[in-house]
């Protein structure tokens, strides 16, 4: 670990300070000491210290993924904390928030402590665990949220297993007010989904696969918004995939309800057409939808209805994905393609670069109450340096993640992380 170093000549984008220009960052003992944006300054003593020349590169606050599956404990054949955090670093993420659907479920302080201890010894980036809302994610009894919060959890979610019982969801949103953390809702009416495996419509009929209607998501978004309004608890909607959800969230925000929302790169990049060849790597929950949903999600990212882009990084073993479509597990390995896919939004003019950095860094930090997503003096030096022009081909075999399950194999993406600085370490990414 270098005690002191500079990052010079890079184009700094930091929405937390309204910075979008060339400048210099001085780092000391793993913390940001100062950020200077005027070009004219020349720090004399910089000659004697290590300098990272970021000429022609962009310098961002490290990305924060508020929706990740690291699979440990319990499913280390899919991913481990070691490999998952390496994948994060490669994708430019310096903080990730693992969901609690491990084995055992992260529904008590002992599991939370295990995850943090494991990351301390083996992880490359910061981890902020998300605890379960209910014991065993069974949707029946509240988990010990306060004790998990004390142990380090930053939000609560039964991700993957929606809380179907409205009374329990009401209590969870109410109870979470004691410590003002969000309840992250995987919005899906399990009964309505009825074991569907892809978006319901012409294509599902053509393929002979069971569909999941958009209403399955929309209904739960509507319910949870109402419960947030009833209780005053903070609600965060995970992985928005439908036009209907967007409409409901927009309306709720206009009415002042405490709701925030995220979507994932696959929901604005590809449609249900990706499952056409029974490609299990495109099987994800909620399922890939239609063009009109993509349009609505892009509009929502633009007008702020959707606050965050999260990866929902869901690695699976290759053997598990090599199954009949309806038997394969859902999920996309997303940490290492998120930036390239999201930069397409900037290219298309949907988001400004500040807007994008807000959605993958500052906004998730604010929602979770993390002191991350900023290059302000005093903050941890979590920094991502990106070559915006560099084109690269997605090759799952080269992922750091053990999960090679991506529907973007072979895609050429523009913009790539070349260096990630985290926990005082400098990772050069080849």
């Amino acid at each position, binding site marked *: 670990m270098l005690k002191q170093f500079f990052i010079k000549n890079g184009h700094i984008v930091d929405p937390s300070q309204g910075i979008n220009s060339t400048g210099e960052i001085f780092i000391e003992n793993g913390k940001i000491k100062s950020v200077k944006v005027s070009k004219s300054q020349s720090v004399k003593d910089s000659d004697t210290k290590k300098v990272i020349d970021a000429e022609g590169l962009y310098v961002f606050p490290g990305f924060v993924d508020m929706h990740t599956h690291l699979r440990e404990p319990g499913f280390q054949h899919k991913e481990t904390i070691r490999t998952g955090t390496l994948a994060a670093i490669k994708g430019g993420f310096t903080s990730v928030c693992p969901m609690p659907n491990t084995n055992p479920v992260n529904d008590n302080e002992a599991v939370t402590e295990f995850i943090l201890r494991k990351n301390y010894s083996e992880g490359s980036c910061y981890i902020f665990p998300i605890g379960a809302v209910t014991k065993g994610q069974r949707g029946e*009894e*509240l988990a*010990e*949220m*306060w*004790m998990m919060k004390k142990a380090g959890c930053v939000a609560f979610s039964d991700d993957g297993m929606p809380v179907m019982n409205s009374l329990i969801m009401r209590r969870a949103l*109410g*109870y979470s*007010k*004691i410590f003002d953390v969000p309840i992250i809702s995987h919005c899906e009416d399990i009964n309505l989904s009825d074991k569907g495996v892809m978006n319901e419509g012409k294509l599902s009929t053509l393929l002979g696969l069971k569909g999941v209607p958009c209403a399955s998501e929309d209904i739960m978004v509507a319910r949870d918004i109402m419960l947030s309004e009833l209780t005053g608890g903070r609600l965060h909607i995970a992985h928005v995939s439908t036009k209907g959800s967007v409409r409901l969230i927009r309306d709720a925000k206009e009415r002042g309800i405490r709701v925030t929302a995220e979507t994932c790169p696959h929901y604005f990049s590809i449609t249900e057409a990706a499952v056409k060849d029974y490609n299990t790597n495109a099987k994800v929950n909620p399922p890939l939808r239609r063009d009109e949903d993509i349009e609505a999600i892009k509009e929502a990212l633009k007008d702020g209805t959707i606050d965050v882009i999260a990866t929902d990084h869901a690695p699976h073993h290759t053997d598990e994905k090599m199954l009949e479509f309806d038997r394969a597990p859902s999920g996309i390995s997303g940490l290492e393609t998120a930036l390239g896919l999201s930069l397409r939004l900037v290219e298309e003019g949907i988001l400004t670069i500040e807007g994008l950095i807000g959605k993958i860094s500052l906004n998730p930090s604010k929602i979770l109450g993390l002191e991350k997503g900023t290059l302000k003096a005093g903050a941890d030096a979590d920094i991502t340096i990106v070559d915006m022009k560099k084109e690269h081909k997605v090759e799952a075999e080269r992922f750091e993640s053990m999960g090679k399950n991506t529907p973007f194999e072979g895609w050429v993406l523009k913009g790539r992380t070349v260096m990630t600085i985290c926990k005082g370490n400098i990772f050069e990414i080849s």
Partner: protein
Amino acid sequence: MGADFVVIRHASAGVPYCLSKILKASVINAGDGANEHPTQALLDMFTIKSSKGGIEGLTVAIIGDIAHSRVARSNIYGLIKLGAKVRLIGPPTLIPSGIKEFGVEVFNSIEDGIHDADVIITLRLQLERQGKGFLPSVNEYFHLYTLTSRRLKLAKDDVIVMHPGPLNRGVEITSKVADSSHSVILEQVTNGIAVRMAVLYLLTGARENA
């Protein structure tokens, strides 16, 4: 039978009221569902008055399962009427909706809620509430809401601690606090007899002679 009094405790709210409409006898509510427990509130206020010399201006914190407590409701009505400031403390899942409109302050943090309190009333936690979604566990409740000696220091030096009984020692209140010099729990029990005698007395000839 020509009874003069009917003393009724009932699991359903409103039964004493309905009964009073059809009976000539005096109906004394000894607790109806989660509605009211007037004689408990009277004896609580009598106990406060005996210890503090009055009620007006005092800050009274009530901790625990307000949603299911008839004791809390009767005390809220009585204490506010007599000029006390009433604070309710508990997890949002055990705070009934609309309660702020009764003129009380609501706190989710016990530390904030008992700060500078003159009187603390702890309520019995019905242990069957856990598992129904109100609380994750008694263990977590203990960490968040149990009245311990350490927390008691946040209240005024001469704070008195009350409890309508029976106590779950180590759940809503530690034994150390329940048996401390601040505790007036045993006085409450004694005063209960006097207050209930007075209620009966006032409902006989005494009322007509008054």
